[in-house]
Each structure stands twice: as C-alpha cells, then as structure tokens.
C-alpha cells in the first residue's frame, strides 16, 4: 500500500484540486485526476518529504474558525490604523516569541496564520533557539499578543500535529 500510494493525503488533495479545477465530478475526470494524483505523489516521494502526523481532524475545523474570526477582527483594526495615519503616533513593535512547536508543517501553518492576519507579520524564525520574530502594527500589550499566539494557535497546532 505504502509503495503504491506513498502520500495518501497529498494524492487526495491533488485529486480534489483536479476536480475543482475541472469543475466536474464525471467518472472520466475522476479517473484522470486519480492517475495524475498517483503519479505526482510518487514523484513527491522521490523528494522524501517528512510525513505530517495529523491527530485531530476536529481541531483543524476549530482552528479555521478561530483564525477566520481573528482575521476579520484585525481587518477592521488595520483599516482604522491606516485611516488614522500619522496622528496616532508609534505603537508598532517587534516581538520575539519562544515556541514549543517544532513540527515543520505546524510551523508553516502558524507562519501562514500570522502572515494572513493583518497587523502581524512573521519575520524570522530561528531554528536553533526555536523563537520567532514577529512585527506587530499595533503593539499595545506584548503579553496579550504572546498569549494569543501561544494559547490560541500554538496550543491547537500542538494538539493537531505533535
């Protein structure tokens, strides 16, 4: 099984992408998509990527929900900051956050979350010290930011991946 289908999740995702792009679930497209997914995931195996270990599917949905709400909230916050412009003075700042996550996939997802959220940007990850440098546009309270990052996202990602 492992030999024919080295990365089942990847193959499934590729098949889903193929069907979405074709906008069809005709048997022919499923067959063609499955063939492409199989070939592509075997090619991927040649690169010997690490296999993500996903534990809790339900937690992923919770994470998506949390992130969507947070992104919506910070969209509004950043819009306000842009219009207030120069009058509001400097509130931005750098933040070094120590992380417990070491799984590459989890780190990649955390980077996507932090970057996708307006008002915070993932700048530099230090693999040796396991810290990340984040720039925050409206850094009123450092502790709140670290708390959000660690307790909202990192805790969930730890449950999902490690």
């Amino acid at each position, binding site marked *: 099984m492992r030999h024919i289908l080295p990365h089942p999740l990847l193959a499934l995702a590729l098949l889903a*992408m193929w069907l*979405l*792009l074709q*906008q069809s679930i005709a048997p022919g497209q499923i067959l063609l998509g499955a063939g492409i997914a199989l070939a592509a995931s075997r090619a991927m195996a040649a690169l010997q990527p690490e296999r993500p270990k996903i534990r809790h599917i339900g937690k992923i949905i919770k994470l998506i929900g949390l992130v969507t709400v947070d*992104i*919506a909230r910070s*969209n509004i916050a*950043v*819009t306000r*900051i*842009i*219009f207030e*412009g*120069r009058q509001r003075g400097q509130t*931005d700042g*750098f933040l*070094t956050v120590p992380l417990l996550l070491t799984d590459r996939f989890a780190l*990649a997802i955390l*980077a*996507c979350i*932090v*970057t*996708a*959220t*307006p*008002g*915070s*940007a*993932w*700048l*530099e990850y*230090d693999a*040796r*010290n396991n*810290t990340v*440098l984040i*720039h925050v*546009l409206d850094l009123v309270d450092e502790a709140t930011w670290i708390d959000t990052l660690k307790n909202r996202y990192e805790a969930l990602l730890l449950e999902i991946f490690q």
Partner: protein
Amino acid sequence: MIETVDTPVWAAILVSVLVLAGALLTLVGCIGLARLETFYHRIHAPTLGTSFGTIFLLLGSVVYFTVTNQRLAVHEVLVFVFVSVTTPVTLMLLARAALYRDRTERNGNVPPSADPDYTEQGQR
C-alpha cells in the same frame, strides 16, 4: 458551454455588496501601502487585500456563478488557498532582506538576531 440565466435581484445585490466590499478592502490596503511610513508598517497593509479582500471577491464570484450557472461553483477556494500559502513566502523573503539591511546599517530599533554567531557586520 455555459448557459446563463437572468440574475435574480437578491443575487445581484448580494454579489455587488460582496465585490464592492472586497474591492474597497483591497483599495484600503493599497492606500495603506502608500501612506504608512516604514517598511515594517507597510508590509501589514496589503494583507487586507490578501485576506478579506480576496475572501469577499471570491464569495461574490461563488454566489454569481452558482446562481447564474445553476450549479455549485467552488473552485474559487483554490485561489484562496494558493494566495494564503504563497504570501508568507514572499513576505519572509522581503522581511529578512530588510532585517539584514537594518542590522548592518543599524537603522531604527530593529532587534538583534537571535543567532549568536551573527556579528554586527553581518558576517557569520
């Protein structure tokens, strides 16, 4: 290939609101890019366009094509996935270049590197 039908009023209004909201957010992001002062401020503004700006535009597209083509159009999801997966890559490239520049030139209040082998001349 695609047979379109007349768009019902409710759909037309919903689509217009969604597309306008998305376009406005993207515009605000662009204004922010022009108005904010430093590099580290500016990187935050376009995120409006890549997060809810994109989400609203894509939702508008989903509603429009689902209603007019009488079938579910969901491939817009892929646009969102690719946008959110690729933006951090470019952002990190730009950010690390800016950090490197500011550390070597000692501009502003950039924190020193967490890497102990990194010297102030920027040489390892």
